[in-house]
């Protein structure tokens, strides 16, 4: 069974049927300093009858990619649209004849989603250039021989949550981190040897279709609490080399202690912290997809822990961020707090948004928009 509503009828009445997606995006401190806009983008849409599709994209920072902010906006918009169409196709399948749904979904990713995203993105870019030709100043920045699409270069990370299935596609750098029920991470997208941390593949590349990496997860076999999609501004800010491990452990803990409203209130601060001069200083965009299991985790006891609120936090030795029983003030130096307040307020009012497929999270009207 691969239709998006597959699991819904079996859910108890008080259990959420769909995923909640929380997003935040923050312009990097280095981009603020040189007065360039936030070149990241994020989008969330419904998919199928009870699914959701989320996308983040990172427009390239080099001067030759002078319209990359537009490129990333087109990427997330088109990515979500094509993701919806994929969901529709999966929903129309005859499940009785579907002996190997994972292979069928994978096949559709390769035969439909990836080529459609690449083709439509290129078409949209060319249409944008036709409607708004490069100015003389922009032409001066373009490199001789560059196709117009190079000016719009962007990555794209796409996640479609459909019932029992999680469908992922990525081109370029950035991170997709799944959080298992036991708080361990899973990195479902295959590594790309082309991504050496110094350069990235791109939608504007000559073989963009071939550069996409995909994954299909059967959530009945490997259930998740949540999935993080993040542009590289997030991962590049993390001190720990293997940061997905501590991220997953901490998030699993947080989900047992905090509700969705609290999480929504925190996400912009996470992005702001990574995008700050104390972090990567790069544009940082995150989409956190919280599975029904993650939404129901509050009050549960994580594996290997006691339910004592004063119990030792999972990263007691960390100097930076730990998970204490109570929220504590962060370690931002006093002199930076005023700026941080203004920065975070701007993020929350301008960018934070929240999406729910079947129900709103408790108190979702506070602070964040709900679509």
């Amino acid at each position, binding site marked *: 069974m691969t239709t998006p509503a597959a699991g819904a009828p079996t859910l108890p009445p008080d259990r959420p049927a769909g995923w909640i997606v929380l997003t935040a995006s923050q312009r*990097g*401190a280095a981009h603020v300093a040189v007065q360039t806009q936030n070149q990241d983008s994020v989008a969330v849409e419904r998919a199928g009858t009870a699914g959701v599709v989320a996308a983040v994209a990172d427009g390239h920072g080099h001067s030759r990619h002078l319209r990359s902010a537009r490129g990333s906006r087109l990427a997330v918009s088109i990515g979500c649209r094509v993701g919806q169409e994929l969901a529709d196709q999966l929903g129309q399948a005859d499940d009785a004849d579907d002996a190997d749904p994972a292979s069928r979904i994978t096949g559709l990713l390769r035969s439909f989603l990836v080529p459609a995203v690449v083709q439509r993105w290129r078409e949209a870019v060319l249409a944008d250039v036709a409607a708004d030709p490069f100015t003389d100043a922009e032409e001066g920045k373009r490199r001789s021989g560059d196709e117009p699409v190079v000016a719009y270069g962007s990555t794209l990370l796409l996640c479609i949550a459909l019932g029992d299935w999680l469908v992922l596609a990525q081109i370029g750098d950035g991170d997709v981190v799944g959080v298992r029920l036991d708080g361990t991470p899973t990195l479902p997208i295959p590594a790309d040897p082309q991504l050496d941390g110094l350069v990235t593949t791109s939608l504007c590349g000559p073989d963009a279709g071939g550069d996409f990496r995909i994954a299909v997860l059967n959530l009945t076999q490997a259930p998740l609490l949540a999935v993080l999609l993040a542009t590289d501004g997030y991962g590049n800010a993390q001190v720990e080399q293997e940061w997905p491990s501590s991220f997953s452990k901490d998030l699993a803990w947080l989900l047992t202690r905090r509700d969705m409203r609290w999480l929504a209130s925190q996400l912009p601060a996470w992005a702001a*912290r990574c995008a700050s001069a104390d972090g990567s200083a790069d544009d940082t965009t995150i989409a956190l997809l919280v599975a029904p299991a993650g939404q129901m985790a509050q009050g549960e006891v994580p594996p290997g822990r006691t339910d004592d609120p004063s119990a030792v936090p999972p990263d007691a030795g960390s100097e930076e961020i730990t998970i204490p029983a109570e929220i504590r*003030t962060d370690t931002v130096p006093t002199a930076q707090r005023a700026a941080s307040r203004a920065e975070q307020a701007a993020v*929350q009012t301008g960018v934070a948004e929240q999406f729910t497929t079947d129900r709103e999270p408790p108190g979702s009207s506070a602070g964040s928009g709900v679509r």
Partner: protein
Amino acid sequence: MTETLMPGGGVARRPLHFIVMADCSGSMKGEKMQALNYALRSMLPHLVDWERDQLQAQLLIRILAFASAPNWYVPDPVPVAELSARWRNLEYVPMGRTNMGPAFRAVAEALAPDRLERRALRPAVLLITDGLPTDPPGGFEQGLAALLETPAGRSALRLAVAIGRDASSEPLDRFRSQDVPVLVADGTDEIADRLVTASIAVSRMSEVGVNREALAEQLIQAGRQHGSDPAVQAERRPLRFDDTIL
């Protein structure tokens, strides 16, 4: 809002590794060695200032002294301000040769993927020499190949400062990044100026949104003002910097 509870182990600036390869062969004895030490000391405050003023990177510096064999003078990456505060002069190696191949290998090992943070910025390598390589046959080539086989070594900003016009040789052209010239110090009194120019290149070329073509042109102009021939020193090929990182 001042309360932030963020999963993970905390955040920090991205490291920018800067490796100085300093020729300490026997021919550097005397005034050249003294000038090189003065120049390195003079360069550090510029890098300290840049690091303080920019928002993106933590500059970490190492120094490899090389002669017949390489010797890590500053083996572990240290913040540039720390090195500036506790600077000790390099010393030449009596009878030491100018074997660059083993030095390149040592840098290649330092920049190996398992030795470099995944989130590190494109590193920079500055080679300062007063002479031609004296490696055994094939030694220079094999060492340089080892450096360029590492992703970080290949993509690094590789700068060369030649002390004396004779030192600006074909081997240095093979080492340097394609878009930046060999910086020539015609006399010992020019070494400091060239290292400051190099430090500008190291710092500015890692910044977000910088027009690297324009910056490279500035470096070439600097070379022209100081008498080197930019047509020879820097080929005007398309920039290698395909920096789509940020």
